[in-house]
């Protein structure tokens, strides 16, 4: 049985916790975010080569009040960058976080989830911009924590990346 630690990072309010909630059952309360700055959940995935357990560290949103504790990424095998499709600035923050993490912990497998795809009317990130991100080679998945669209795909994509890394 393989276990992997992965982290959810992104700006405040992009829906990291909602994505995790869609994906797992948790024993911890959300108050942990405001106290310790992280909430830990777990998901078992059945992969081709056997069972993979993802231990998800859902880190509190990065903002002025609560800067991301990069130390929480220590030992992580990969991470999910989350941005909010209705706020373009969150994509910038995601990019910034990505380079900060790479700076401290080296290049790790990651997936970019652009969340809130259900809110079409309020969507603010242009297709152009997204195409540029894809062109960089970033695995990009549009998700909706509300409808559940793309959620499983996000986690399973990262899981496959982690296993590739293992091979």
């Amino acid at each position, binding site marked *: 049985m393989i*276990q*992997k630690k992965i982290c959810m990072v992104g700006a405040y309010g992009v829906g990291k916790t909602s994505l995790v909630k869609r994906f797992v059952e948790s024993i911890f309360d959300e108050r942990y975010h405001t106290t*310790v700055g992280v909430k830990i959940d777990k998901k078992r995935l059945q992969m081709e080569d056997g069972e993979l357990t993802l231990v998800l560290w859902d880190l509190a949103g990065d903002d002025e009040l609560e800067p991301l504790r990069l130390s929480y990424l220590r030992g992580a095998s990969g991470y999910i960058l989350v941005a909010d499709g209705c706020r373009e600035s969150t994509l910038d923050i995601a990019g910034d976080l990505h380079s900060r993490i790479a700076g401290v912990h080296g290049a790790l497998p990651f997936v970019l989830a652009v969340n809130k795809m259900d809110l079409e009317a309020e969507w603010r990130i242009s297709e152009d911009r997204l195409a540029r991100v894809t062109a960089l080679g970033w695995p990009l998945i549009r998700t909706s924590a509300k409808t559940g669209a793309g959620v499983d795909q996000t986690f399973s994509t990262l899981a496959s990346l982690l296993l590739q890394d293992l091979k």
Partner: protein
Amino acid sequence: MTDPSGSGPGAAPSKGNGAGSPDTRYAELRRLLVGPEEAQLRQLQQRLDDPVLHAEDVSRIIAEAVELRRGRDTRLRRALLPVVEDAIRLSVQRDPSVLSGALFPIIGGAIRKAVSGALKGMIESLNQTLEQSFSLRGFQWRFEALRTGRSFGEILLLRSQLYQVEQVFLIHKQTGLLLHHLSSRDAVVKDADLVSGMLTAIQDFVRDSFSPATGEDLEVMQVGEFNLWIQHGSRALLACLVRGVPPRELRRIFQLSLTRIEDQFWRQLDEFDGNVSTFAPVQPILEACLLGKLGERPRQRHTGRWILAGAACLLALFLAFTAASRQRRWNAYLRRVASEPGIVVTSSESHWGSYLVTGLRDPLATDPSQLLADAGIPPEKVAFHWEPYQSLQPRFLSIRRYQAIKDWIESQSVFFELSSSYVGDGLLRPVARKLLELDQAAEIAGKRYRVRIEGRTDPPGTVSRNRSLAQERAGAVLSELVRQGVPPARLVASAIPRSPAESGAETANSWERRVSFHLLEP
């Protein structure tokens, strides 16, 4: 063969054969064909022979070579080991300060940590001793030691071992992933993977928030009766959840277990890629950490408490019962005293089991202290303060009357003529009347009596004559009294003759020729 003109490349063709000697031509050919390579070869030879140049060459590639070789097998390491050892030895011999200076940042920290750990342990043990010596629990244990006759140390050991290691987490330090987890039979276990992750997160949180510079670790967490002790190794953490009051010794056991795990599994820990099944063999080491004696103890302790509570209840009941029965006895006694004729109780007080009774008491009344024995009250517990008075109770009146008549009768005498036993007419009437009154009073007062009629004589005369005369006189008085209505059963005649020897003077004496009365009371 001499051909001075035919040697060297580019020399002019000599005469004789038109194109120089064959040797010369060969040399010329060789020079033309391999001249440049020859120069290169010479250069190479020079580089190989010249140590300076050679060293320069090796220096260019040595780092890459070492790296390559290190990855291939362990021979390089083995080869270098004695060299490194020798070098270190030499360095220490030459100037120890170099190596100690280099190692200080590592060893200094380690020593500081070890010393502070030892000090902490000492302080903890001192605290524990002080706490146990002066706390309520300490006194309880001292009492228990006294009660059971065992030494305080023994009780301390017995009672301090009220703990149970409920859960043991072996956590990979780098990732925070759970490598192995064990729990005791009754422990409540939440998802150990998540607990392990959260524990690591909290470690990071505490370190980041409070001691970023020193890099100290969180070692103890305490919630209610639970202690979480975290042992930090270089590659793994051992977190043990202990319920109750763990002895200090336990921490050493945990540390030893972690050291054993790190020694045996250092490679797996270093190369951990998420495959936790490689850590299954740590199970016996962790099992050895699941120590504790909680479980049997609480029941025993509760039994003790129940016995104590029961004994306290019984004692309270007994005391209440004793107090009530003492009060009941006292009340009964007071009622008895108050009902006695000639006694008036005006007040009674009690102070811590002693009593004071105040009142009026007729001297003829029963002595109340005589009644204490009957009531089962110790006499020393009771003090009396009686004011004397005369009661008008019929019995007391009768007793007083009886006493008065008795006194009067005993003061009476009936006088006789010389040698006569004749009782004058009517002489005995007052006596007879009083004797009848006495009879009535005695009946009411409950007195039993007889009146001795004592016949007397004066000295003159013979002894036998005097005796018979005394008897005659007593008999005459008795007869006369009976005649006047006094019951004969009350009377007894007796002679007290006066003998000459006794008197010493044989003179007639009218005072002694008489009959007197004396009341005989059983």
